[in-house]
């Protein structure tokens, strides 16, 4: 009889709540009882409130148990864990868990199912199908597929990927580059981290398709230093993919070259801005460049460069494998496809929810998230990272789509959703936004470098009621300067959380009189 397969995730968030200890306890207890099992350290399903999650292969599919502690193992084995036996921690068949069953997983289709570094697993689950198709097409046809899919940059700016690729494709140069921005510094986001740790070959495949399409033979993945696990897994995956001929001088024997390098960042948030990232990869301080020239024309080392976020590249293999129309059929309006939303902060069921554009925040917060973790009313939700707006309940029914959010003065960004309950002090959070900008500003432009420090001071005066009415006018004026006078999104978007806090929660700033609220 072959041994039973049991899955315990190796995702760093699962490890952070004890997955390694659970795996060790399972193995030692099984050894003690003379039970044999095959332990697979898979990627995470993204149902983080159930981590450490343990899944057991049964004839009826995988059965889930979670959250498991090392001390639960003996009782779980007594209850017939290896046959999918019933226990208080049993969640039933994994894929029937509503949180997972209601999702539309395209980029995260393999997540939680495969062993991240197993090439056999990747191949068995539609891996490399997009690259193989791309190798039968010429560059223009690959770019056309990406354009037709409607895929837009998932890092936050939502620029159409196909147009960017087209520009690089058409710009003649002896050396072009493909650069993946994996400097996922936004609080409340972890989809890039999960992808790199959990399905690294998907990112490699997407970048390789990009290289083949535009004629770039060198690629870089720029990964933040706060993600040491991602750096390690990507390095290992690049080595495996190179050894297996998916990267190198002749990708899949096609005679076309693509080499991939992993670059570890060094803890600078602004290096998530693409031109600061390029400076950093070139070995310099991460100072933002003025645009133009566009990086698509003069990017890394001054050469034409495709720069996209992890999830943008990760979406490409499926688009090539199944066709642009398949991808286009998801989403709404000009926001086609899906977005991996990340439920974070004070939320009961935090995790990864991949859905087509058009879902509302209320659905994410309650149908998936189950409300606040503290059980208190939700007060504010920051969507799109630390530079995104705080969204009050009156706006929770707006469909999550780039245009609808922009019309409301908000941003979808990288899909991070950070929940705050009614104990949140919005003036404090507004001050934090300014403080964060002051810490992380590259210093090149004045509105960002100095405006952020002045912003903290003004908010402090508002909070301590020194000329409050005047200071509120000053804060709005300062924000206007930052929005319109900054070189990049760091300075120009920091006012979004500040002003949304001020506009929607004036009482937290001590403002009650309507005259003080006038915009």
């Amino acid at each position, binding site marked *: 009889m072959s041994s039973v397969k049991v899955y315990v995730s190796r995702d760093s968030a699962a490890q952070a709540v004890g997955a390694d200890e659970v795996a060790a306890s399972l193995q030692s207890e099984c050894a003690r009882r003379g039970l044999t099992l095959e332990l697979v350290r898979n990627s995470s399903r993204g149902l983080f409130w159930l981590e450490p999650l343990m899944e057991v292969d049964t004839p009826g599919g995988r059965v889930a148990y979670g959250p498991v502690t090392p001390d639960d193992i003996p009782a779980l084995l007594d209850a017939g864990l290896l046959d999918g036996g019933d226990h208080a921690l049993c969640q039933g068949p994994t894929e029937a868990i509503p949180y997972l069953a209601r999702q539309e997983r395209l980029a995260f289709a393999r997540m939680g199912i495969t062993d991240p570094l197993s090439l056999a697993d990747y191949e068995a689950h539609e891996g490399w199908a997009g690259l193989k198709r791309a190798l039968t097409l010429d560059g223009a046809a690959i770019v056309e597929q990406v354009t037709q899919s409607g895929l837009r940059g998932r890092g936050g700016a939502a620029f159409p990927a196909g147009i960017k690729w087209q520009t690089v494709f058409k710009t003649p140069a002896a050396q072009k580059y493909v650069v993946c921005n994996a400097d996922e510094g936004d609080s409340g986001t972890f989809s890039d981290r999960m992808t790199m740790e959990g399905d690294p070959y998907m990112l490699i495949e997407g970048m390789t398709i990009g290289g083949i399409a535009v004629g770039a033979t060198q690629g870089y993945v720029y990964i933040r230093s706060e993600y040491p696990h991602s750096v390690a897994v990507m390095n290992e995956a690049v080595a495996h993919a190179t050894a297996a001929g998916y990267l190198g001088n002749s990708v899949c024997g096609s005679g076309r070259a693509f080499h991939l390098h992993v670059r570890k960042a060094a803890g600078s948030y602004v290096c998530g801005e693409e031109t600061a990232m390029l400076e950093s990869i070139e070995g310099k301080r991460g100072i933002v460049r003025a645009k133009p020239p566009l990086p698509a024309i003069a990017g890394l080392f001054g050469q034409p460069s495709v720069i996209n976020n992890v999830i943008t590249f990760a979406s490409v293999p499926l688009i090539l494998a199944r066709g642009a129309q398949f991808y286009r059929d998801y989403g709404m309006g000009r926001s086609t496809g899906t977005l991996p939303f990340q439920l974070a*902060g004070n939320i009961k069921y935090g995790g990864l929810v991949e859905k087509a554009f058009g879902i509302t925040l209320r659905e994410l917060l309650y149908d998936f998230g189950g409300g606040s973790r503290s059980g208190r009313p939700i007060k504010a939700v920051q969507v799109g990272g630390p530079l995104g707006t705080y969204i009050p309940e009156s706006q929770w029914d707006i469909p999550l789509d780039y245009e609808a959010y922009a019309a409301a003065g908000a941003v979808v960004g990288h899909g991070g959703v950070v929940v705050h309950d009614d104990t949140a002090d919005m003036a404090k959070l507004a001050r934090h936004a300014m403080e964060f900008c002051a810490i992380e500003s590259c210093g090149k432009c004045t509105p960002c470098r100095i405006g952020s420090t002045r912003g903290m001071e003004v908010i402090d005066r508002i909070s301590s009621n020194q000329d409050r009415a005047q200071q509120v006018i000053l804060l709005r004026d300062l924000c206007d300067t930052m929005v319109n006078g900054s070189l990049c999104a760091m300075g120009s978007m920091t006012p979004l959380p500040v002003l949304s806090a001020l506009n929607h929660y004036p009482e937290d700033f001590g403002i009650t009189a309507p005259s003080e609220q006038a915009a």
Partner: protein
Amino acid sequence: MTDVGSLFPSDSLATVRSVLERHAGEPGGLLPILHDVQDALGCIPADAVPVIAKGLNLSRAEVHGVVTYYHHFRTESAGRIVVQVCRAESCQACGADALMAHAEKALGCASHHTRADGAYTLETVYCLGMCALSPAIMVGDKLHASMTPEKFDRVVASLGNPA
């Protein structure tokens, strides 16, 4: 002109030179070099800067500028155990400020400082990517999520006495 590395302990100098050799010819290789030097020596000592500058044909100012620009790079060694507490928005929504206050008290050192006996360095970080399980900390290279002050004490106790 004296050898730029003359004041530098010879084994450290050898380490820096071998790192430079390993990355020779790598385009934009300064960050990988600085990472390797810091991983090997615990920090990027001031005496390493001219050696690296010479090796890459850069000015000392350029190398110094890069070392001091990035939060990750240290010019002095950290304490024996580095404790990082995330204070980004998601963790703030789940009690990160109280956790940091607890950490300062429990470790006996302020944020961004190393305890006088060199046992701990306590740092603030902005996002460890554990946001579905906030608040999060990193101790050495090990992550801990869904933290509480009680769990913090257990984690620190499990490290033994680094003093």
